C-alpha cells in the first residue's frame, strides 16, 4: 500500500459507564483501510467490534485516539462539514426484516437517505431515475420500486438494504453481519453482489462477521478482536494460514468445517469471555489461554510484527523460528 489509506484509526479508546463500573469497550485500537479494500472484523460477542463500527460511522466519539478519514479528522468537524462527512460512511445491517420500514415501498426505502441529504438529487424526477438505477445495480427490477416490502424475500430485502446504503455514494460501507440472517443459498447471492459492487464502484468494506468461512472468502485483510483490543491482524491468507495469537488459532479451530478429512486436533477453549467490567491483568486472553505463563499475568503482551502487515500481541506466539514475528519496541 503505497498510497495513503482511506481510513486510519490510531489508539482508539472508549469507555462506557454502566451500573457497577466502567466498561472499556475499546482499548487502544488501530487499523487502516485502503480504497476498494475489504477489511474483515472478527471476534465474539462483547469484543468491541460493534463499538468500533459505530466509531467508524461517527455515531460515537472516542475518549482518546484519532480517526483520519481521507486525511481529515471527522471528529474535529461540526455542523455542515460533519454532515457532509457522514454521507461517506454507510452501513448495511444484519437483519433485513428489522432494519427496513415495512410500511414503505422499495423505492421509498432506497430514496430515504436523500430526505436527510437533500442536496444530492434536487428533483423528484432525478431521484426516481436514481432509484431505478440503484435497484438495477443490486439485481432487482427497476419496476420493483413501487412494490411494498412484504413482497420481497429475505435476500431481496438485503439487496434493498445495500441499495439504500449506496444511495449516498459512500466511500466506505460497514457491513454488520450482512448475510448471517440469510439462508446459505441466498447468502452466496448477496456476497457475490457485494463483490461485484466493489469492483464496479471501488467502495471499501468493513465486514463484520462471526462466520470465518465467509470472512475468509470476502476479506483482503482481517482484524481479530478480543475484549476491546486487536490481538491479531494481517492479510487474510497470513492470518488464516499462520495464526500467531492463540485466540486466533482457537477461533479458527472452533469453527466447524465441512472438510472432515483433515483430522485436526480441535482447540476447545475453557470458560467464556471475562466481563469487560473487570478485564484480566496483563494479557486479556490469559484466563482462557493454554500457553499462558506468569508473565502473561503481570505484563501486557508486546506487539509483534513481520514488517509486512502481519501483527499480533502475544508473549507466546504460535510460530517460532524464521517465520516468527519480530518484537516492535
Amino acid at each position, binding site marked *: 500500500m503505497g498510497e495513503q489509506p482511506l481510513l486510519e484509526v490510531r489508539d482508539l479508546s472508549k469507555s462506557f459507564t454502566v451500573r457497577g463500573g466502567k466498561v472499556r469497550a475499546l482499548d487502544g485500537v488501530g487499523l487502516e483501510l485502503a480504497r476498494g479494500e475489504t477489511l474483515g472484523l472478527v471476534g465474539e460477542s462483547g469484543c468491541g467490534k460493534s463499538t468500533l463500527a459505530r466509531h467508524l460511522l461517527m455515531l460515537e466519539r472516542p475518549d482518546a485516539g484519532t480517526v483520519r478519514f481521507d486525511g481529515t479528522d471527522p471528529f474535529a468537524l461540526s455542523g455542515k462539514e460533519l454532515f457532509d462527512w457522514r454521507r461517506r460512511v454507510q452501513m448495511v445491517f444484519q437483519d433485513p426484516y428489522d432494519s427496513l420500514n415495512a410500511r414503505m415501498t422499495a423505492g421509498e426505502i432506497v430514496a430515504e437517505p436523500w430526505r436527510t441529504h437533500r442536496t444530492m438529487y434536487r428533483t423528484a424526477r432525478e431521484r426516481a431515475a436514481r432509484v431505478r438505477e440503484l435497484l438495477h445495480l443490486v439485481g432487482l427490477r427497476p419496476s420493483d420500486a413501487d412494490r411494498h416490502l412484504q413482497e420481497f424475500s429475505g435476500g431481496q430485502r438485503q439487496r434493498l438494504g445495500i441499495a439504500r446504503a449506496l444511495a449516498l455514494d459512500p466511500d466506505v460501507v460497514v457491513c454488520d453481519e450482512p448475510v448471517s440472517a440469510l439462508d446459505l443459498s441466498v447468502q452466496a447471492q448477496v456476497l457475490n453482489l457485494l463483490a461485484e459492487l466493489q469492483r464496479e464502484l471501488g467502495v471499501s468494506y468493513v465486514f463484520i462477521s462471526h462466520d470465518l468461512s465467509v470472512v475468509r472468502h*470476502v476479506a483482503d485483510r482481517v482484524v481479530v478482536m478480543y475484549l476491546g483490543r486487536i490481538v491479531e491482524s494481517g492479510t487474510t491468507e497470513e492470518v488464516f494460514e499462520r495464526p500467531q495469537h492463540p485466540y486466533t488459532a482457537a477461533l479458527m479451530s472452533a*469453527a*466447524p468445517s*465441512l472438510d*472432515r478429512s483433515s483430522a485436526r486436533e480441535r482447540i*476447545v477453549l475453557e470458560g467464556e469471555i471475562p466481563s469487560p467490567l473487570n478485564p484480566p491483568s496483563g494479557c486479556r486472553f490469559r484466563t482462557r489461554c493454554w500457553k499462558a505463563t506468569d508473565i502473561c499475568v503481570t505484563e501486557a503482551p508486546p506487539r509483534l510484527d513481520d514488517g509486512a502487515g502481519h501483527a499480533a500481541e502475544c508473549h507466546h506466539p504460535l510460530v517460532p523460528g524464521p517465520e516468527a514475528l519480530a518484537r516492535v519496541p
Partner: protein
Amino acid sequence: MTATLGTDTVLEVDGLTVDIRTHDGTVRAVDGVGFSARRGETLALLGESGCGKSMTARAVVGLLEPVVDVTAGSVLLDGVDLVTADDRTRRALAGPGIAIVFQDALTALNPVYPVGTQLAEPFRIHRGMSRRDARREAIALMERVGIPEPQVRVDAYPHQFSGGMRQRLLIAMAVALSPTVLLADEPTTALDVTVQAQIMTLLRDLRAEHRMAVVLITHDLALVAEEADRVAIMYAGTVVETGPVGEVFASPRHPYSKGLLDSVPEHVRPGEPLRSIGGAPPDLADVPAGCVYQDRCPLVRDRCRASRPPLDETGPGRAAACFYSSEVSDG
C-alpha cells in the same frame, strides 16, 4: 458404521404430516416426513428456514401450537406411537423417553424461578423426590454440564447466566432423566463459536454417557459434517435426501443437496464468485404438484412437474427423492 446399528433404532418417524390452520386456509408445513434415529448416534435434520425441520421436531415431542395438527403419520418411540398415545402416556415419556433442547435458552427457561427449582422439577415429577433430594440432583447436574460453583449458582435466576451457561442449563434439564432420544433444535445458533464448540463437546459426551439417540436440527452444513452420523435433508416440508453424512456430502444424490453444498464459501477460492441456488423455496401454501424442487432444479423435466418423486433408495442406507438422482454428478 456397522450393520448392527440397525437393531438399535429407538425413534421411527413415518409419513409425518403437519398442517397449520390459518385464516387463508390450511398450510401443510410438514408433508410425509420419515426418518429414524438409533441409540448412540446423531441424526441431523438439515434445511433452510421454512423447510419444516423445527415443526417436525415440535410434532415429534408433541409441543405444537393449538392451530397446528398432526394430520397423518406415526412417531414410534421404542414401539409406542406418540401421535396416538393418550396424554398420560405422553407425559410419562416426556423426560425419560424423549426431551428437547431449544435454540433460545432465555425464553425456554422460566425467568421468575431460580434455575435450581427448574432443574429439580423433572426429579420431583417423575421420580417423586423430596425437595432436598431433587435439589441435590439439580446441583449434580449443574456440575456435570460444567457450570462453575453449582452450590451457589443453584439459587440464581436465568438472567444471571451468560448465553452459553443458559444453554448448558437447558441441556441439563433435557438430559436429567437420561432420555432415550434427545432432540436439539439449533442448540448453538445463538452462541459464539468458541462456546458452540464447548456445547457440542458436552452434547457428544452426554450422548455417549446415556447412549442417547440425538436428533440435531440445524441449518449449518459444517456442524452436520462434524457432529452427525447420518443426515436427512429437508426442503419445503419434505425429506429430499437421507444417508450417512460423509457419503451424502461427498456425492449428493438430490439436486438440492448438491446446490446447498455448492453454496458453501469453503468450497470456493477466495475472491471467486460463490455458487448459489437461483430462486426461492415455494410458498408452503402453494407448493407445486410434482417435485417440490422443480422451480429451482437444473435437471427438471416434464415428469418432475407431473408427479412427485418418492424417497427411493439410491444405495445402502441412502435415499433421495429425485427421478434423476443418478445424474446428480459430483462435478
